[in-house]
């Protein structure tokens, strides 16, 4: 019809103007570049500045290998223990009402809310050579502080909320009906656990495991306090990186750093892959809940 006002090309009422969109995306990308991409590239560039030979020599150094070994060992002990604890705690919290449940939920978060350095101090104050408990252990030939057991303990402490925190909401969302169904169908407690409970939280559990592992290998503060920095004995990879750096051995420091960076990248990839699996399971629950509510 003539005289009808010309309109701008239509866009949905909720869409932002193009300029705003471009500006927001640009800000995000610049930020990412400054704080993520450039540092990551810098780590590898620094690590390789003296050539690939020096890079591998730095990693193959006996002290570096000892640090890698200690880090792997610490993770190998801390991660399974925390995953076990995480399953037990989340199951108890999601399934049962018991006095002190809220307190337990709060206590689980303590390692998150306390500075890692203080976590380390806790163990020194508790188990150091001059304390009664530390003295008792020392008399029996067990050194905890400034030795491997202290590092493992500190790592367990700082990582223990990770698996539990990931599992509690999933366990709660899945509910107990399937478990009850398994029991009524004649399954025993362990059969129910391995055939029904565990498969239902499988992806969430792996997700928690990946996060727990990354933190266990990368922990600096708490471990630094209890380690004593004995080269070749009580140095984990992050501590070793610091020592190298303070010794002006930048190429070697960055070479070991690059291993931790690769761990971080692998963790991110695993996290993304697993996260996608965890979310649909939750989504399905929500759909069901909506249907039920309707």
């Amino acid at each position: 019809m003539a005289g009808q006002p010309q309109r701008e090309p239509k866009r949905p009422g909720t869409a932002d103007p193009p300029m705003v969109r471009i500006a927001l995306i640009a800000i995000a990308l610049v930020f990412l570049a400054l704080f993520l991409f450039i540092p990551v590239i810098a780590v590898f560039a620094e690590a390789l500045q003296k050539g690939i030979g020096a890079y591998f020599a730095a990693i193959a150094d006996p002290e570096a290998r000892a640090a890698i070994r200690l880090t792997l060992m610490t993770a190998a002990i801390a991660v399974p223990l925390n995953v076990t604890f995480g399953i037990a705690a989340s199951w108890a919290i999601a399934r049962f009402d018991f006095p002190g449940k809220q307190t337990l939920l709060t206590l689980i978060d303590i390692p998150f809310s306390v500075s890692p350095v203080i976590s380390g101090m806790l163990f020194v104050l508790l188990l150091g050579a001059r304390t009664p408990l530390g003295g008792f252990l020392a008399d029996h030939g067990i050194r905890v502080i400034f030795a491997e057991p202290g590092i493992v303990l500190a790592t367990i402490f700082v990582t223990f909320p990770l698996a539990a925190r990931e599992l509690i909401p999933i366990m709660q969302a899945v509910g107990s009906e399937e478990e009850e169904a398994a029991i009524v169908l004649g399954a025993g407690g362990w059969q129910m656990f391995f055939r029904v409970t565990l498969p239902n939280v499988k992806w969430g559990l792996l997700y928690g495991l990946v996060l727990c592992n990354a933190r266990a290998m990368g922990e600096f503060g708490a471990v630094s306090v209890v380690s004593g920095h004995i080269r070749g004995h009580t140095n984990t990879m992050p501590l070793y990186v610091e020592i190298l750096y303070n010794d002006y051995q930048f190429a070697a420091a960055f070479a070991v750093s690059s291993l931790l960076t690769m761990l971080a990248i692998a963790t991110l990839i695993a996290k993304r892959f697993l996260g996608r699996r965890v979310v649909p399971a939750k989504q399905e629950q929500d759909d069901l809940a909506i249907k039920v509510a309707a």
Partner: protein
Amino acid sequence: MSIELRNISKKFGDFVAVDKINLHIETGELVALLGLSGSGKTTLLRIIAGLETPDTGEVLFHGEDASGVAVRERKVGFVFQHYALFRHMTVFENVAFGLRVITRRARPAEAEIARRVHELLKLVQLDFLADRYPSQLSGGQRQRVALARTLAVEPKVLLLDEPFGALDAKVRQELRRWLRRLHDEIKITSVFVTHDQEEALELANRIVVMNQGHIEQIGSAEEVYHHPANAFVYNFLGNVNLFHGRIENGRVFLGDTAVELENTHAHAHPETGKAILYVRPHLLEIVMKPNGKQTFPATVKSINPAGPQVKVELVAEWGDMVQVEIDHERYQALHLEPGANVFLRPKEQKLFVYSI
């Protein structure tokens, strides 16, 4: 297997879910526990299954106390309201679950398990879905898989918690008939929980009407519908109009109008007291002229002619809303319009009188 409940009580905190219930269920019966949410029916069902422990009382299976018997050894089948299918297993594996968890010595061979699973899936007409996952099925299909899974362990008692509650009306009716046929075929002692009176009336041999943790009435569909034990049961089973009035010297007053009613089924009949008159919508007649004291005046509010009966909403002279259902022929003959002043004549009513 017969079930006997003796003096069962269960509290959750301060809330009394089940209050001293006694109930006997014969072998092969299909019994409905009917009640509103919060009436304790699901708790009672879970107590029978062993999923809840009663605070007092005992459950007897076939005359034997089952209190110390673990859930997995009770030989009960439990169908959950939201199916509780194992979401990470295929339909086949879901149905096979009960067979796979049997101790190795007693467990049937793999070929035997497969045979039985397919047999059950054929029984529920879902054999073609054996490889699917629960999330790929419709609600009705999921419920049938849940039933097949339960039947796989050959339970002696089948317990169903709102089995059709989460399904739409059409599927619900279909499944209802299907369950009735299944029960006629395999004659397993069954108890199902429902809040849907129509479902209970259509499906059950006997209906247990529950309210606030206790039993209001036990009886066949015929008994509870036509001979309700009390006002609650009458009110709960089917639509009903409720007139608050009073009774003076044997005469019933609604508002200021005295009505003389024929065919009144009165319960407890003091001469004077507060009276509640219950009349089902289809037992009220609309007439254009008053007929002595058997009618009372009302004004038509709205008319809904969709459906097998015409639903007319009226306001009685003293302000109560009244629902009436008349057939289409009568509706045509009356030429009803909203706003019309008419008279209502109860054909049959229940009078429950409470002394003041």
